[in-house]
């Protein structure tokens, strides 16, 4: 049973990790785009989760 | 006089590059128009738009009485576009290249017609040799020979004088006169002012994708 929890933990962990990874990546690209367009702040609006 | 080409505010962009910005152009039937300008000023793009290869991003373009995008097939039947790079298959002979063009455009050209077209541009001796071994000037003549295969209402020539010898340039002038006398409109895009303007009724100069100056 114990190694089942290993699989379960890995599954939930990877799901959460990839969601966070995607959000962070989005946010980095948004900041880059905002900086490039010189309309600072709009895209980098920190309200979003992640 | 009816118009072969009527362009109003024709614009074309490729991504961030604006090749043409609001070009107005009228080419009456039976007229020769020289399209001058340095490299990269939009001459070729304009010809590609008129020949229906490209669609304009904005603006109105009427060719041979059809307002694009309608009438594409009618335009392609009546108009011909000689590209600067040419359109020849290396492994095929001169006659075979012309035969392919004739079949694709749906004209009933006999073998004799094809050979006559080649002979008109001094290619009789090379007619049965693969294009692979031909010189640049000979290839240019092959392009011109292809235009003789069918009756045309509009001829678009992109840099027709490049890599031709004096005789070859003379052949282009003869051909242009022939088309004009037959009532066809001819647009010559070239950076060679002298040659392009020789028979021109109109000279249009393109600078940075815009029409710079029109002189009658």
């Amino acid at each position: 049973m114990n190694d089942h929890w290993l699989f379960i933990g890995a599954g939930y962990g990877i799901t959460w990790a990839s969601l966070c990874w995607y959000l962070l990546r989005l946010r980095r690209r948004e900041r880059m785009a905002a900086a490039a367009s010189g309309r600072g702040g709009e895209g980098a609006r920190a309200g979003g989760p992640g | 006089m009816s118009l072969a080409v009527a362009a109003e505010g024709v614009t074309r962009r490729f991504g961030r590059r604006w090749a043409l910005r609001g070009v107005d152009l009228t080419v009456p039937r039976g007229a020769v128009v020289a399209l001058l300008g340095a490299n990269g000023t939009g001459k070729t793009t304009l010809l590609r738009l008129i020949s229906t290869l490209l669609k304009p991003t904005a603006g109105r373009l009427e060719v041979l009485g059809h307002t694009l995008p309608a009438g594409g097939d009618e335009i392609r039947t009546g108009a011909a576009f000689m590209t600067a790079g040419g359109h020849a298959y290396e492994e095929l002979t001169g006659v075979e290249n012309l035969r392919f063009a004739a079949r694709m455009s749906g004209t009933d050209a006999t073998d004799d017609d094809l050979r006559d077209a080649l002979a008109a541009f001094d290619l009789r001796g090379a007619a049965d040799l693969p294009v692979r071994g031909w010189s640049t000037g000979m290839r240019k003549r092959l392009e011109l020979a292809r235009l003789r295969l069918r009756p045309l209402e509009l001829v678009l020539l992109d840099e027709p004088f490049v890599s031709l010898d004096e005789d070859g340039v003379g052949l282009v002038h003869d051909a242009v006169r022939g088309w004009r006398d037959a009532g066809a409109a001819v647009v010559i895009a070239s950076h060679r002012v002298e040659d392009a303007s020789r028979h021109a009724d109109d000279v249009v100069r393109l600078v940075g994708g815009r029409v710079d100056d029109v002189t009658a």
Partner: protein
Amino acid sequence: MNKLTMLGWVSIALIAVGSVLGLAVLPADALQGEVQRLLYVHVPVAWVMMLAFFVVFLMSILYLVQRQLKWDLLAVSAAELGVLAAVLTLILGTLWGRPTWGIWWAWDPRVTTTALLVPIYTGYLVVRSMTEDPDRRARWAAVIGLIAFVQVPIVYLSVFWWRSLHQPPSSPQSMWSAYGLVMLLGFVAYTLAFAYLWLRRYRLAATELELELSGPEEG
């Protein structure tokens, strides 16, 4: 907080609640034991994958009909999330399959088809990244998005036959109905998360396209 941000927080909260319910609150499945808990993620993520690729298909059609770049941007945003969801589905599937079937990879038709979706839509994204002209890029991408959606059901069907001919597929057990509610919560949560990420990715794509088009002109 604007609506999109709210959507983001709501979906995150629902995913968190679903995770807690699935991991800690519900008892282990009578037949499968604890491994069952992976399905509360696996199945909704697989659903999001299918939803995403269906959105790519719809947006591709809309682009081909209307030729407006916004449809293309919506399509690529969904394709990116679809690939992410497909990879996640595969990982979760193998993690579930190892304890359940005893092997990592059973050539199950659904698994195999999902695995094939990854290169298909990776191809879609790579073709895009290699094409500079936005109109060309959108046109070719839309064509691939459309063809892919036509081929996928037949790919699934053929893999299904291929498997059923060689050996009967290990049939996945039906789910105990009391778990349905948590599963439903998962569906809602991950669908909302998809909607949030999709729209936010679309907004980014729109900004980036604007930058691309307004940048310094060459020639």
